[in-house]
């Protein structure tokens, strides 16, 4: 700024400066050109790659703005999930007998109770029995209050209830599959009795002997329907009705209707001694 104080000296200085600026501009242009050239030549040759996995653990601080954002979403979930829906006076296990289990029976009975009226009202038909897969039940019911969170733990998957129409031959195949399975797949609405050698003694469906000449309606998980023959349960299906009703919601709806949850091993699937 002090350059501009005297008129004469400014003129002289200004002339010099003008040349200087021109030179400067030339220099800048040259440097730019060089840079441009070198950047073009050196562009994008990959020379080194390093990979590592970083663990997300307690050594990392949480970002408060993220935690604060999550908080209201979480508290709403906790409020809904942790409110008691019913009370279990005893723990309901999943391994208390070889062919049918307390929790398996409870789950199949709930599916029967909740699906039967729905199926009747939408199709006019009667549900005959229920088959679920043992692997779809992920944990037991512990003694005490039973909450919706427990229903999520028992049935974490988004599986819907489907009703499958099977002909007599397909029902026989399904029964064979259940008899030969290494795990006790939950059933309701039917009774399977094995003789002491493990062969089939009798099958009753809705209290009547299994009739291979007619078709049956079976409520199950859509997982088993989609899985097709490869997972064993259903091979030839005459027809499938998707209820759009989540298995988990059937459990939650049922728990809301009752005060006390009780379940036991019974004679729906037994072997004679």
């Amino acid at each position, binding site marked *: 700024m002090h350059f501009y104080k005297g008129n004469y000296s400014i003129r002289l200085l200004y002339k010099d400066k003008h040349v200087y600026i021109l030179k400067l501009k030339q220099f*800048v242009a040259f440097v730019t050109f060089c840079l441009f050239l070198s950047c073009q030549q*050196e562009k994008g040759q990959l*020379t*080194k*790659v390093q990979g590592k996995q970083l663990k997300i653990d307690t050594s*990392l*601080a949480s*970002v408060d*703005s993220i935690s604060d954002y999550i908080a209201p979403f979480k508290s709403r979930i906790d409020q809904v999930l942790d409110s008691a829906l019913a009370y279990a006076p005893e723990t309901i296990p999943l391994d208390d007998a070889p062919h049918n289990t307390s929790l398996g029976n409870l789950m199949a009975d709930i599916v029967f109770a909740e699906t039967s009226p729905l199926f009747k009202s939408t199709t006019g038909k009667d549900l005959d029995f229920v088959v679920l897969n043992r692997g779809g039940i992920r944990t037991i019911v512990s003694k005490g209050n039973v909450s919706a969170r427990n229903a999520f733990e028992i049935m974490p998957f988004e599986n819907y209830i489907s009703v499958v129409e099977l002909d007599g031959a397909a029902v026989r195949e399904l029964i064979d599959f259940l008899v030969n399975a290494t795990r006790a797949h939950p059933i309701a609405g039917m009774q399977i009795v094995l003789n002491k050698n493990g062969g089939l003694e009798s099958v009753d469906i809705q209290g009547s002997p299994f009739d291979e000449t007619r078709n049956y309606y079976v409520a199950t998980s859509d997982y088993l329907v989609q899985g097709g023959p490869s997972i064993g349960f259903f091979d030839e299906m005459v027809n499938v009705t*998707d209820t759009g009703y989540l298995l988990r919601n059937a459990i939650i709806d049922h728990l809301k209707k009752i005060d006390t949850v009780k379940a036991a091993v019974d004679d729906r699937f037994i072997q004679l001694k």
Partner: protein
Amino acid sequence: MKRRDFLRNTAATSTLIGLGGLSFNSCKGLGSRQITILHTNDVHSHIDPFPTSHSQYANLGGVARRASLVEQIRSENPNTLLLDAGDIFQGTPYFNFYGGELEFKLMSKLKYDAATIGNHDFDNGIDGLLAQVPNATFKLLSANYDFSNTVMNGFVKPYQTYVLDGIKVGVYGIGIKLDGLVTKRLYKETEYLNPFEIALDTERLLKEEEKCDLIICLSHLGYDYQNPDRPSDTQLAQRTHHTDLIIGGHTHTFLDKPDVRINQKGNSVLVNQVGAYGLNLGRIDFYFDEAKNASANGVSISV
């Protein structure tokens, strides 16, 4: 007059300073330009850390913690991309209650750049996925799902390019066969196209037309299967020509370190996957150098 001269003078000087600064940054940086790729897969709605009582993953994971790690890495190297290889949805009540809203909103807050679509991202149907699109500031990428006849038409791109520190990065998405894995009722008219063919077409386009310097595949095919004809990341890696990195998902594979496979041109391709549930963040750093160095030494990979 005086004022104008002064301005001219200052302008020239500041140009020089600016250029000096630029040359210092970029051309010194040219010796080793660094692109950092951060990635997750199969987070499955795991927003909170696992509880202390968890038998396998006690106190691990959590989005708020992942956020601080991402922030820290981004502050060290702004030339960072954050990517996800699908199955963002399903696995905790957050999804059951909010349908993926919170998952997408948090990924947007963490400034994810792109994600591909996993089979579980169809769990609330294609309409359920569409409903969450407004919550995503990141791009949804899939080159081999054709959504033309669905409500998702126009909301998913086959690939996206990014220019970071003068390096052009192309990211494309590849999804798994939906038939047998997802109910048709959910994915509706989404068409699954051959992942190998589409990947080769897309990487060629990214290399030859988009002139990308670095090509990344975000895949939800799964890491490796016994049957070599079943599309997997390892098979895909061996069939490609231009892909530098495949970030995988679906099989929840915990790799000790990224897998290195050889592609059709005899070059190395990294295949990585970081398990599931947001327990880990994958980090791959790519360093770019002068041409002569590269041809003399090849690419050194330390994993």
